[in-house]
C-alpha cells in the first residue's frame, strides 16, 4: 500500500477583496499517511478552515495542489467526507434520514442505506434516536449524527472542522474518546482543524502548526504517546508548551507586522501631505 495518503504540495490561496487581494495560505506543504490522525492548529483566522475546505475540494487553491493517493483533488472527492463545526444537519430530516443523506446521493438502495445508517447510529451511541428530529437533540448528539453521516459513506479520509468547539467540554471529552476509538477501529485517515491545543495533541499522531496569515507550515510535531493519552504526561505538557510558545510568537509577529504596516501607511500619508503642500 502506498504510504502517503494525502499530499499538500505548495498550496497557496488568494481571495479577491474589494480593495486588495487577501493572501490566506502561502505554499503549505505536508503529507499525511494512511490511517494517520493529523491535527492542524494555528492562530485565529490564519486560514485553517480554508485549508480544510481545499482538502475537501470545496475550494480550489490559487496555486499548488492537494493529492489523494497521488491523484489531484479537483472538487469534492468520493473518498473524502467531512464533519462540520455547526453540525450541518438538515432540520427537516430525521436522525436516520440525515445519516442516509450521503448514501442517497450515491443512489444506494433504500433498504441498504437504512441498514448502513442504523449500524452507524449504533456505533455513535444513537441507536433508538433514529426517528427524532435534530431540534430534539443536544449539541453533542447532533455532532454524533454528523460523525455517523460522515462515516456512513465509508470514506478513506474524514475531515473535521472544529468539530468539538460548539459543544460543552464534558460532552466534547466523551466524543473525543469515541472518535479515537473509531479511528483505531476503522483505520481511516482523520484530519482535524482545531484551536484547542490539548485536543489537538490528545487526538493526533501529528500536529501541524500554521503561522498567522498568510498561513505557512511553522512546524510539525510528531506525538509519540500511547493512547489513551494522559494530559498530565510530561511529554504532553512539553509539547503543549512548545506549540503555545510558537503560537504566541506568531501572534506577536503578526501584531508587529500590523504595527509596521500602520507606521508605513502613516509615513505614506505624511509623504502625500508633504507632496500636497509642496504642490
Amino acid at each position, binding site marked *: 500500500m502506498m504510504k502517503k495518503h494525502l499530499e499538500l504540495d505548495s498550496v497557496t490561496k488568494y481571495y479577491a477583496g474589494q480593495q486588495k487581494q487577501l493572501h490566506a495560505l502561502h505554499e503549505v506543504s505536508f503529507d499525511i499517511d494512511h490511517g494517520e490522525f493529523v491535527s492542524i492548529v494555528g492562530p485565529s483566522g490564519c486560514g485553517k478552515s480554508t485549508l480544510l475546505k481545499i482538502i475537501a475540494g470545496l475550494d480550489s487553491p490559487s496555486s499548488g495542489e492537494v493529492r489523494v493517493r497521488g491523484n489531484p483533488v479537483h472538487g469534492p472527492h468520493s473518498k473524502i467526507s467531512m464533519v462540520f463545526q455547526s453540525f450541518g444537519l438538515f432540520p*427537516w430530516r430525521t436522525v436516520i434520514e440525515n445519516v442516509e443523506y450521503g448514501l442517497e446521493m*450515491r443512489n444506494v438502495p433504500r433498504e441498504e442505506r437504512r441498514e448502513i445508517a442504523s449500524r452507524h447510529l449504533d456505533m455513535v451511541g444513537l441507536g433508538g434516536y433514529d426517528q427524532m428530529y435534530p431540534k430534539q437533540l443536544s449539541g453533542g448528539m447532533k455532532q454524533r449524527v454528523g460523525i455517523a453521516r460522515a462515516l456512513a459513506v465509508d470514506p478513506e479520509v474524514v475531515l473535521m472542522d472544529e468539530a468539538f468547539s460548539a459543544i460543552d467540554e464534558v460532552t466534547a471529552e466523551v466524543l473525543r474518546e469515541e472518535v479515537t476509538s473509531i479511528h483505531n477501529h476503522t483505520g481511516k485517515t482523520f484530519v482535524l482543524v482545531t484551536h484547542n491545543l490539548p485536543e489537538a495533541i490528545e487526538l493526533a499522531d501529528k500536529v501541524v502548526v500554521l503561522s498567522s496569515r498568510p498561513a505557512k507550515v511553522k512546524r510539525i510535531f510528531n506525538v509519540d504517546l500511547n493512547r489513551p493519552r494522559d494530559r498530565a504526561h510530561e511529554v504532553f505538557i512539553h509539547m503543549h508548551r512548545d506549540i503555545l510558545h510558537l503560537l504566541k510568537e506568531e501572534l506577536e509577529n503578526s501584531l508587529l507586522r500590523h504595527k509596521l504596516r500602520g507606521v508605513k501607511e502613516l509615513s505614506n500619508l505624511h509623504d502625500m501631505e508633504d507632496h500636497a503642500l509642496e504642490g
Partner: protein
Amino acid sequence: MSVEKQKALTLSLTGRILPHQTVSNYLWVMVLALGFASWEVVARLRLLPSSNLPAFSSVLVIFLFSVQQPAFLLRIAHSFLNLLCGLILAFSVALPTAFVAGSKNPFDMTLTPLVMIFGALPDLSFLPLLVLWFGAGDTACVIMASVAAFFPIYFTVREGTKSIPRELYDVTAVFKSNKLSTFTKMVLPSISPHLFSGLRLAYDFDWEIIIAIEIATRVAGIGNFIEGKVSSGSLAQGFAAIMAIALLAVAVDKTFFGTLESWSKKWS
C-alpha cells in the same frame, strides 16, 4: 382568566374538564357565535332597515339552500379555478426568480428594486390595461391574480433563500449532490416555512383581487353573483355567497396550508 375559572367555564359549556388550552383554542368560535347572535338581534329588532341587513337566520337558510344548487357551486368553482390558475402561474415564475435573487447578489441588486417599484403600485391599477389587452374575461382575471400573488411569494422565497446557512451548501457539495438534488432536497425544504407563508398571503390577496375583478369586469364568478344580487335587492343571497367564500377560504387555509404548516412545525 385564571386556570381554575377557565376549567370551570369549560366544564359548564361541555360538561367535562378539558385542558385549559382547549378553551383558548376555540375562543374564536365563541366570538364568532357572539357576532352572529348580535347580527340576529340587530336585524330582528330592526335597528337597521331589513333592506340593508337581513337576519342571520334568513341568510343561513338561503346559504344552506344555495350550496345545493349546481349553478351557485359552479360560480364558486369558476372563481376558485381562476384564483388557483393565478396562484400556480405566480408560483412558477416567482419561485425560480426569487431563488436566483436570493442566491446571486448581482441579480438580486438588479431585479429586487424593480420588483419593489412594481410591488408598490396598487395591483388593481393594472386592471384597465389587462382588460384592454385581453378583454374582460378569465385571462385578465388570472393574470391579475398572478400579479398580486407574485410579490408575497417572491419576497418570502428570496428571504428564505438568503437565510440558508452556507454550511448546508457545503454538506451537499461534500456528498456530491447534483444541482437538481441540491435544489429539491436541500433548498426547497430549507425555504419551505418562508414559502408556505408567502403562498398563504398570496392566497388571501388573490381572493380579494378575484372578487374585485369579477365585480368590476362582470366575469361570471361568485363576485359577479354577489354584485348582481346586492344591486337587485336580494341581499340575503349576497350574504349567503359571501358566507360560502369565507367557508371555502377557511377550509383551504385549514386543510392545505394547515397541513403544510404542521409539517414544518414538526422540525423547525
